């Protein structure tokens, strides 16, 4: 079984790692709740990259 979500053109900016794997025809193992992407409106502002954040 499969779920397919279709977003309208220019509505979402999918996370780069997911797009990069897919462009290599490689599936990515994910779990419910993992980040998929952000609304294009928000993408223009930008989200903080948590992986690059440092605790001080």
């Amino acid at each position, binding site marked *: *079984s*499969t*779920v*397919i*979500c*279709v*977003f*309208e*053109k220019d*509505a*979402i900016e*999918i*996370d780069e*790692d*997911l*797009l990069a*794997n*897919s*462009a*290599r*025809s*490689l*599936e*990515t*193992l*994910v*779990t*419910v*709740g*993992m*980040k*998929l*992407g*952000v*609304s294009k*409106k*928000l993408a223009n502002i930008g*989200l903080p990259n948590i992986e690059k954040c440092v605790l001080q």
Partner: protein
Amino acid sequence: GHGSSKEENGAAESQSKGSRRARLKQRLHLHRRRRSRSNSPSHGKLLNAENFAGIALLTLVRAEMKFKDKWLACVSFGEQTFRTNISDQTDKPVWNSEKKLLLEKNGPHVARISIYETNKMSRNNLIGYCEIDLLEFLTRDSDSNSNSEILDLLDPSTSDKIVGKISVSCSVEDPIETEKSFARRILSIVDYNEDGKLSFSEFSDLINAFGNQVAANKKEEMFKAADKNGDGVVSMDELAALLAIQQEKEPLMNCCPVCGETLEVSDKLNYMIHLTLCFDEGTGKQVMTGGFLTDKQASYGWMFKLSEWAHVSSYDVGLNSGSSANHIVVFDRRTKRLVEELIDEKIVLSMRAIYQSKLGLGLLDTGAKDILQSLSEKQGKKMNSVESAKDIPKFVEFFKDQINLAEVKHPLEHFKTFNEFFVRELKPGARPIAYMERDDVAISAADSRLMAFKSVDESLRFWIKGRKFSIQGLLGKDQCSNAFINGTLVIFRLAPQDYHRFHFPVSGTVQQFVHIPGCLYTVNPIAVNSKYCNVFTENKRVVSMLSTAEFGKVAFVAIGATMVGSITFSKKEGDHVKKGEEFGYFSFGG
């Protein structure tokens, strides 16, 4: 024709049978001569009268009836019955339906042909019948060049009244051709790119799937013998010739890939004939339907395993039996590592055979869709039975590295059927939702293997190879607006061991559900990557439309697959939903 053999007395019959066999030997002598010239080591085996076996090609050509109707004809031979298509409304139906029948010394040799008028409002009515002794027909003295005969059709209630005539023809298939075409066809299963050449790995896949260790050890030797210039590929015809020789020395398959029947190694010709007939039944080459393939038989043969779900309820003989498991590589986003997912080689091969070859395409056109539906419905009933609960521990053990029982909401004893366990809920918090308070961040809708593409064009370039795929085909005409046509596509593929509930990827309102009926093909990448199979636009599915503030409209398509064709929703139209909330689940069934 009918009746004539019944008039013979015992002694005469015995003598007649002896002479018939002699005449048949003579008729087949031509084949022997040709075989000798071709230096095949198997020459003459068909001509051993004591072990006679051959394939008779029976054709029901046309009939002349006494009134107009829509007609069909059935042939009963031994325990099998085959039928033609239904003719147009006429008193002279034409079928030209062919059927290959196995004719052997101790097997049946009288075929009964029955003609029915068809009626939509009631049962089909038997109007006439006749019987034909195929052995006698093939060995008769008169005009041996003619393969045709016109037989009287008798009234079933009186037996002496003639109600029509039927024209039939019958011939013996050239055994050399039978062997060659069989070898070519079995090899074509693994000729994935259909260039008529085989690499060693393609050939190796096939021999491994046969499950015969002796043959597996010889595959390199055989391949090297055929690959005379050592370039690593050989033509299908060259390999077919070698395969036929090997097949005679030491049969490669222990059981029939199509129906699963154990093959009698000591009876090599019957073995090959059985396989030929079984393959014919599925390829659509033969016009008549019925006979070998039932869903029960299909569930035994590896050719029809069709899905990675095939062994879900039988893990004691399941995916990791044998050392030849194949794999699909996926990237684990959490650990950032490549991981291999094991799938039994037979299942991989059968999926390729069905979904990625022209042979498979033929199979799908001749009843395999119904078989998938029937298998899935039966699997659903089985998985909803109390007895199925005993499979849960085996399943958990098999996937012990991939199913975390600590995060399952209820203990194993709670689940009264396998399906209940299959749609298990997780404890609250087991799946943290990224940026929970921000509706402008979308999340993954399922525990799954994910593919994402900025546009449909990219999805077609990298993943979906079905020639008929389109967003409009996926969503249906009424659901598909222009904004979706070149929208972004995210595919979540669930595997047997996964948590099977799906969740909302975005917050919004559920607008409507549209149920689209369809097939239950596997959604494995092998099928998705096939140009012949249009899984996403032909499978049964439910399209729901979500209206959101941050993403506009989002189409959510839940697609059923082989064995797992049941889709249940826990929300209804008009519900306001938060991303991460449960939306529904897939379960076993049709």
